[in-house]
């Protein structure tokens, strides 16, 4: 069973081809790192997977169920998530709690279990003490952390993360990767993460996908151990 199944995906912005012939899968227990130079359309690929953009060719399938047969819960942290409106009237706690809403709590009160998840997520990013602060008063790095705490609180089956470690120091990054690896190995989560820092993460990730391209052609999939099909030369 695949959580994400991308098959021969191509994507064009108007007439400009940006992605071509991309195929790979992300399964439960996979910790996949997605890399590529600046401008390699990594975010565009994520957005196609999430359904925020429609592929021009090929297909993306997100499994409707998780490995236990329940509805699949997706947790997404976008690149700009931390640049939210500074005036947004919410405390840190409220924001992280909102991660629990998608677990059937849109119209119900949060229970003990929900609150426990929220507390642990905040603690894991070291922000529990700050829970009553207004989110607009936090620094960039702190905003990043509560965005991560929010997604962890949702306890998703599949994490889709777009450069979540931007602005973190080396130590926090290592801790974050450890946390993710623990989540994939012990709890069977699937993880797809766009990142720049190849070297440090190599010990933690289980698969590596790199977007590469030849001169003047769209980005294609190239992988050490996961992409099935290497692209043919651009015609």
């Amino acid at each position, binding site marked *: 069973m695949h959580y994400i199944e991308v098959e021969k995906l191509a994507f064009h912005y108007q007439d400009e081809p940006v992605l071509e012939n991309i195929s790979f899968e992300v399964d439960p227990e996979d910790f996949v790192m997605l890399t590529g130079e600046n401008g390699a359309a990594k975010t565009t690929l994520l957005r196609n997977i*999430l*359904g*925020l953009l429609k592929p021009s060719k090929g297909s993306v399938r997100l499994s409707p169920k998780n490995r236990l047969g329940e509805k699949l819960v*997706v*947790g*997404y942290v*976008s690149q700009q*998530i931390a640049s*939210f*409106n500074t*005036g*947004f*009237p*919410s*405390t840190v706690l*409220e*924001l992280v709690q*909102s991660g629990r*809403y*998608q677990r059937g*709590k*849109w*119209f119900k009160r949060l229970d003990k279990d929900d609150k426990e998840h929220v507390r642990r997520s905040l603690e894991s990013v070291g922000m529990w003490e700050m829970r009553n602060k*207004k989110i607009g008063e936090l620094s960039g790095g702190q905003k990043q952390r509560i965005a991560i705490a929010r997604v962890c609180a*949702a306890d998703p089956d599949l994490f*889709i993360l777009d450069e979540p470690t931007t602005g973190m120091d080396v130590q926090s990054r290592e801790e974050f990767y450890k946390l993710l690896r623990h989540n994939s190995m012990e709890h069977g989560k699937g993880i797809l993460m766009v990142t720049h820092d190849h070297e440090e993460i190599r010990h933690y990730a289980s698969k590596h996908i790199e977007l590469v391209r030849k001169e003047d052609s769209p980005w294609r999939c190239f992988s050490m151990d996961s992409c099935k099909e290497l692209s043919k030369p651009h015609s």
Partner: protein
Amino acid sequence: MEMFFYGFMQRAFQASFLISLIAPILGLFLILRRQSLMADTLSHISLAGVALGLLIGVNPTWTNLLVVIVIATLLEYLRQIYRTYSEISIAILMSAGMSLALVLMGINDGGATLSMTQFLFGSIVTINEQQVWLLFVLTAIIGLLYLVFRKPMYVLTFDEETAFTAGLPIKMMSILFNILTGVTIAVIMPIVGALLVSAIIILPAAISLRLSKSFNGVILIGIVIALLGMLSGLAISYEIGTPPGATITLILMIIFAAISLIKYSLRHIQLERLYKKSDAS
């Protein structure tokens, strides 16, 4: 106290009270969704709706509601097209609404011009029983919707992509929210006037946004501020014979200025104490 003996003043106070309850709720979402100007656009559109009603001889309330609902739906599509410059859709429709209203008025010149001014500047004497009831029903609906859909709306206003990946029907929610805003504006426009309707919706929330750190807090404080501004503005406008919409807006502006000043001074005093402490130690 004599103003309370007049039926039209009683209705005006009832209407103001109800508007104070809904304005901060809509205002907060409009501000956070960066659509503060949408209220302005819809009020101009709403003017065209009224002009249309007067032209074809149908009760303008109904044509107004119809036109505003259609445009509020269209707004969401325009917002999608100009995603990064969502104010373009607002600018386009604002001028379209205003010109349409003026052209329709031109076709229908004569008696209608007089009632048009009432819609532009608002007139408390025009409020009738039916409007108060309409407003009452609308307030009940908005209050209920807020209580039920508070959490989905929180996530939607925080970040639309996050809301989408959490499985919310974001397009539908946006359209329904626009329609609700449109209907509210169509209902309160004849009371406060097309030119100031957006100020009355946006200002209370804009002020209370600086005073509270939670969603519910902003709305509750917003309601208090709206009540303060609307009721005192109405009383003053009666006493000195100024247009109510404009009087209310000015009072809200004064509250805004006063709160900014107080916040600024408090901060200043705090900083000063902090410096003194660090000097002493």
